[in-house]
C-alpha cells in the first residue's frame, strides 16, 4: 500500500514539475541582470520592470487588449446568459443543433476560425484591426461563458421566478430582483474568464489585428530582438500573476452560494 502511494506522489510531483517549473523561469529571469536566458544568473535587477514604463507601444498594446477584452467579455457573457437560460429552462425544436453551433468555436481549431473570419472580413472590404479581433474573441469566448453559466443556472430553482411573478413582480422586476442576484456570481465568473481568454489570445489577433497589436502580439513582435527580450519576460511575469489571480477569483465566485444550504445549520422547529 505504502509503496503504491509513494509512486503516485512521485508521479504527481513530476507532473506539477513539468507544468510549473518552466513557468517559474519567467519571473526568475525577469529579475536577472542579463539579456540572455541562461544560467548562471548574473545578478539581481529590477531594470527590466522599469523598462516597461517607458515603452509607448507596450502601453498602446495593453490598452488595445483591455478594450478588446472588455467588449468581448461583456458581449459574449450577455449572449451566453440568454443562451444558457434558454437551454436550461426550455425544451425547444433545434435545441441540440443550436447548442452545437454555439459550442463549435470551442472545438474547431482556432486557426481555422481565424482564417475564416479573415477571408470574410477582407472580402467585405473592411480594414483589419481591433474590430475583427473583438468579433473573433466574442465567438471564441461565448462557449466558455455559456458552460460556466449553464452550470450555475442548472442548480437554479425556477419556482423562485414563479414565486416572484406570483408576488406581483412583472418579468423585468423578477429578473432584476430574483434571477440576476442569484446568477450574479456565475455572470462575474463568466466575465472574468472570457476577459482572460481574450486577453491571452494570440492566433485570432495574429490574423486579424493588422497594425493594431494586442498585448500577446506585442510580445511576439518583441521576441525577434534579443535586446528586447528581458522586458517581455517582466511583462510575462506580471501577466502570469494577474491571470492567476483572476482565474482563482472566477473559480471562487462560480461556487459562491452553491453549497450554502448544506453548510448552514438547520434549526429544528
Amino acid at each position, binding site marked *: 500500500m505504502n509503496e503504491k502511494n509513494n509512486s503516485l506522489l512521485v508521479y504527481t510531483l513530476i507532473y506539477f514539475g513539468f507544468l510549473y517549473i518552466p513557468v517559474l523561469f519567467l519571473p526568475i529571469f525577469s529579475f536577472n541582470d542579463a539579456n540572455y536566458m541562461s544560467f548562471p544568473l548574473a545578478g539581481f535587477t529590477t531594470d527590466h520592470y522599469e523598462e516597461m514604463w517607458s515603452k509607448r507601444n507596450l502601453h498602446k498594446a495593453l490598452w488595445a487588449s483591455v478594450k478588446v477584452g472588455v467588449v468581448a467579455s461583456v458581449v459574449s457573457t450577455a449572449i451566453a446568459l440568454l443562451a444558457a437560460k434558454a437551454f436550461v429552462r426550455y425544451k425547444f425544436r433545434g435545441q441540440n443543433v443550436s447548442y452545437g453551433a454555439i459550442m463549435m468555436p470551442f472545438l474547431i481549431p482556432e486557426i481555422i476560425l481565424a482564417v475564416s473570419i479573415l477571408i470574410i472580413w477582407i472580402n467585405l472590404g473592411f480594414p483589419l484591426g481591433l474590430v475583427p479581433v473583438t468579433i473573433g474573441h466574442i465567438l471564441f469566448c461565448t462557449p466558455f461563458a455559456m458552460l460556466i453559466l449553464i452550470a450555475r443556472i442548472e442548480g437554479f*430553482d425556477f*419556482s*423562485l421566478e*414563479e*414565486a*416572484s*411573478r*406570483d*408576488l*406581483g*413582480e*412583472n418579468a423585468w422586476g423578477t429578473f432584476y*430582483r*430574483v434571477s440576476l*442576484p*442569484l446568477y450574479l456570481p456565475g455572470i462575474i465568473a463568466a466575465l472574468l474568464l472570457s476577459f482572460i481568454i481574450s486577453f491571452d489570445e494570440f492566433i485570432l489577433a495574429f490574423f486579424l489585428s493588422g497594425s493594431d497589436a494586442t498585448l500577446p502580439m506585442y510580445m511576439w513582435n518583441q521576441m525577434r530582438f534579443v535586446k528586447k527580450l528581458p522586458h517581455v519576460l517582466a511583462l510575462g511575469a506580471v501577466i502570469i500573476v494577474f491571470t492567476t489571480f483572476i482565474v482563482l477569483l472566477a473559480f471562487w465566485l462560480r461556487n459562491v*452560494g452553491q453549497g*450554502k*444550504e448544506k*453548510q*448552514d*445549520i*438547520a*434549526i*429544528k*422547529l
Partner: protein
Amino acid sequence: MNENFIQINGISKHFGNVKAVDDVSFSIKEGEFFSLLGPSGCGKTTLLRLLAGFEYPTNGNLLIDGSDITALPPDKRPTNMVFQNYAIFPHINVEQNIKFGLRKLGLTDDEIKKRVDDVLALVKLEGYEERFSGQLSGGQRQRVALARALVRQPKVLLLDEPLGALDKKLRDEMQLELRTLQKEIGITFVFVTHDQQEAISMSDRVAVMSEGKIQQLSAPNELYKNPENIFVSDFIGETNFLKASTKSKDGDHINVAIEDLGDFKVKNNLNIPENSSDVVCSVRPESMMISRDKSDWDICLEAKINQTSYLGEMTRFYVEVSGINKVITVSSQHFDNQSFENNTCFISISLEDISLLQKK
C-alpha cells in the same frame, strides 16, 4: 357569502396530445377550504397553476369575485401561492422575503411594518426576521412561504401540496394549524394534495380528480359514505369490490345479484338502471364484522383467514370466503392475530353498508 366566488367554466388545458385538464366546470365558495385531491398526473396541480396564472387554459374561462382573470398574468391576479418546495428567495432574509410582494401595493412604511408584524405573529415566526432560508427547518420555511403569500391579503390562497415535504408528526400539526388559520382569517383556500386523509380532515369540500376530470365534488363525509363511482370509492379509504348485476327496482332500493353470494335488496342512491350487468358492490373493510360465531346480520359467511396485519389501532384480516374467488379485507378493533382457532371465522355484512356503483 358568495357561492360562486371562484368560477371555473369549461376549463381545459392540453399539453400536446395530453389533456391535463379536460373540460372542468365548478364553483368555489367565498371563505371555503377547498381541496383538489387525486393521484399524481390527475390534473390537480395544472388546475391550480391555471388559477395562479402560470399556465393559460386551452379552453374555458376563470372568474374570481366576478371578474374575468383568464388572460391576466400572475402578478395581476388576486391570488397568492404557497409552493410545494416553498420557493423562499435564498439571497434575502425572512423579513425581506415577506416584504417582497408589498413593494407594488403602494403602502406607507408604517402600514408595511404593521402588516409584516401581524403576519409574523400569525404564523408564529417572530424573532426569525434576520434568518435566511438555509438557516430554517422545513416547517419554518413553510411558515415563511405562508406569511409571504398572506401578507398581500389575497382573495384566494393557493396551496400546492405544502405539507408533502414535512415528516408525519409535523404534518399532522400543520394540518390542524392551517385549518385553524384559515377559519381565523377567512380567506378562500384552494389546497392541492394527493393525500386523501389530509384532504378529508381539512376541507369543507373536496373535488376528487382523475384523468383531468372531476370525479366527485362533495363534503368529505359524503365522499367516504356515498362515493359516486368506482374511482372515488377506491381512492378514498379502502374497499372491497364484488361483481354484481341489477334486477328490478323497488322504490329507492334495487334488487341485485351479487356474484357467488345470491340475491339481495340494497339502496340505490345513484339511481342505477334495472337489468344492468355493469355494476359492482362496494363494502368497506371496517363496515364488516368478523367473529368466531355465526351472526344474525343480513349476510353472514364462513371464511378462512389467509393473512393478518396488526396496525395498532386495528387489525386487518385478509380472508377467503368459501364460494367467492377473491380475497376480502376486513378490519376489526376487537380481534387480533391470536383470536381465531384454525383460522376459521365468520364475516358479517349489513345490507345498509353496501354501495352500489356503476362501472364506467
